[in-house]
């Protein structure tokens, strides 16, 4: 994955009357990343995204998209990005084909490439077999897909999605996570805001925390954060186990151990988790319970936000 900066933000400050929405926010967004933007309600997430999309002009600060000043020429910036707001609308009386065709026209896709662009976008969002249906007849999840299809039809390098999972059922959320990973694999850089941290773990490479308009942290999900695709399992042993730490190491299970409770980071794969449990039992350890713990990303997020507030 390329880590060259796609977006460089420096000293971004945005005011609403009587309230500063963004305080001197600076960061660099690597190309090919999926950044999860999280923070409490009113933290400034939407304002930050609208500034990145050159929809609102900040009081101070610069935004460079692919090396160009994003605020100097907003129409040029708009050609390089797709943006899906939290509350989006569709032309519900138009067919999906016409919705996508209009968006392709509006984004300046050359006439000869319109049909191919419509077919590509519909394929990406899994709506290729519904192109003649009216947008108004789609379910909430499919509307979300159509809206994303409209946002990516000109194949922008940057895609910004504001709360794309809100209102979706669990199955639609899984589909969305799959779609976002696919778009990243297709070469896009994504920034996604959400309140639901568990779902962000499914696809994010970076986590940006913003609180009260200030950037609390922006880090790759790795060191210090739960690994993507891992599940934290809490194992309780019968008290009084001899050489517990050594026997766990001998079983090939590196772990944190406090008294008779161990925490294992295991792949999110039932077969591998069953194998780990079997290894513990083969070692002669008396296991009282073996269960996943609450999402660690959420714990870590709360820890950072509280730390920043203090």
């Amino acid at each position, binding site marked *: 994955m390329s880590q060259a900066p796609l977006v460089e933000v420096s000293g971004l400050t945005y*005011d*609403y*009357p*009587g309230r*500063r929405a963004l*305080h001197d926010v600076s960061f660099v967004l690597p190309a090919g990343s999926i950044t999860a933007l999280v923070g409490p309600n009113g933290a400034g997430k939407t304002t930050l995204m609208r500034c990145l*999309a*050159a*929809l609102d*002009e900040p*009081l*101070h600060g610069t935004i460079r998209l692919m090396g160009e000043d994003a605020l100097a020429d*907003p*129409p040029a910036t*708009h*050609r390089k*990005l797709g*943006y899906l*707001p939290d*509350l*989006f*609308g*569709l*032309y519900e*009386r*138009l067919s999906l084909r*016409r919705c996508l065709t*209009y*968006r392709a*026209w*509006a*984004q*300046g896709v050359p*006439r000869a490439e319109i049909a191919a662009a419509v077919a590509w976008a519909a394929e990406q969002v899994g709506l290729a077999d519904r192109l003649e249906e009216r947008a108004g007849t789609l379910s909430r999840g499919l509307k979300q897909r159509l809206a994303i299809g*409209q946002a990516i039809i000109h194949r922008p390098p940057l895609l910004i999605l504001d709360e794309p999972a809100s209102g979706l059922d669990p199955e639609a959320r899984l589909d969305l996570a799959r779609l976002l990973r696919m778009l990243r694999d297709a070469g896009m850089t994504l920034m996604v805001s959400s309140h639901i941290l568990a779902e962000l773990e499914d696809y994010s490479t970076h986590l940006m925390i913003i609180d009260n308009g200030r950037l609390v942290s922006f880090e790759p999900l790795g060191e210090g954060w739960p690994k993507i695709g891992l599940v934290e399992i809490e194992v309780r042993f019968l008290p009084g186990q001899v050489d517990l730490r050594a026997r766990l190491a001998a079983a090939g299970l590196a772990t944190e151990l406090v008294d008779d409770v161990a925490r294992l980071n295991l792949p999110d794969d039932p077969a591998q988790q069953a194998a780990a449990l079997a290894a513990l039992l083969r070692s002669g350890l008396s296991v009282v319970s073996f269960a996943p713990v609450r999402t660690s990303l959420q714990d870590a997020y709360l820890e950072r936000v509280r730390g920043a507030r203090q």
Partner: protein
Amino acid sequence: MRTAEIRRNLWLELSPQRLIALPLILLVVVLVGEVVSSREHYLGEVGSWLYYGMVLLWGSRRAAAAVTEEVNGGTWIGQRLSALSPSALVLGKLFGATAFIWYGGLIGLALYGFILFDADLPQAYVAAVLLQHLAWGVFVHCVALAASLVLLNKRRLVESVGTTLPQILALLVALAVFGLFWRGPLVVSLVGVGQAISWYGLAFDPALFLTAVAVVFAAWGALACVRLMAAQLQRQLLPWAWPAFVLFLIAFAEGFVPSSPERSVLFSQISAISVALTLYYLALFADRNEPLRFRHCIAAFAGGRLRRGLSLLPWWVYGWFILLAAALWPSGGESAEPDLLGRLAQVFGLTVTDSVLARLGLVCFALRDAAFVLWINAGGRNQRADLVALIYLLVLYGPLVALFIGLEAWTVVGLLAPLPIGPAGLGLASALVQTAVLGFLTWRRWQALFRT
């Protein structure tokens, strides 16, 4: 693609069912009327009323809704993010969102035109009258679209925008324009005989003159829409359009000033000052006056971004300088004849000591009112601050001034309103002091608002 917006609107507006049903309905209406009416030119009248009913009443609503429906339906951001130019979007909304209205309206206009041609009128005259109808229709749609964009601009932090207010504004402007040009398309009808219109001393055929006026006003309306749309698309615009329109309107009105030397000073001032003053207050209440705009403006100038700073200055600032120039020209100081304010003073049986100072007082009171509007806007998060300020000013200039006039407290009146009474320069000094005080208080409020 420049036609994207118009094609999308045509998809939405024109269905085969609608295209077939409308002419059938209109045919039934016309035939029933033809049977029950004995009037000679019935068909032509029906045609013109059908045209105005559809294009003015329904069309103005559709033109306003072309923006408000996008905002309320959540598709407006998608349009702001598109690569479409402001002119392509305006074209699509003006003629695409109203396509069905134009379809019905043109059927009515065709009926009207048929009767005109049938009456053996000169073809050039008939063509001019029909073009005049079309141009007024486009003008009203432009006003409705522009009003919705102005409203959207003023309520940018609000989720929804109504359609009725811009439609009413468009219809009010239409009524005002038709009232001013009463020889307009509703009156210049079948006979087409009327007095020549005198403009800058030249005689013009009413039909041709009004057609030219309608086309020019429609062009100004379209320009206003494109400029307002460009602002929505984050384009940084140099602010030439509004001052140009004010100057155009002053020059246009000047053309109607009678050439007789005894009346020229008064009427010139009436036209120049009243036009500049009307447009100044229109701009003051149409543009955004919230503190954030001025903060951005000041930051842009402070950061050396002159173009950005100029584009953020409210229209009324430019309008104020034109008002100042209009008040000082012609000076009238050497003329024994009383000027506009002098005539006003005579109504109250008073004498004006210095007309130049009085006119400067008028300009400074206008600035005082702007400072007042800014001060109210700086008072909090009130979305209706401009409306509140407007009500206060109406109370000041209406009942309050009337009360002091009734009490014959002329000095107090001179302190509050731009009436040329009391000691020379009193009004001017009062307006300057009030402007300075309100300016200082506004600055204090801004500082408190943005203290972080």
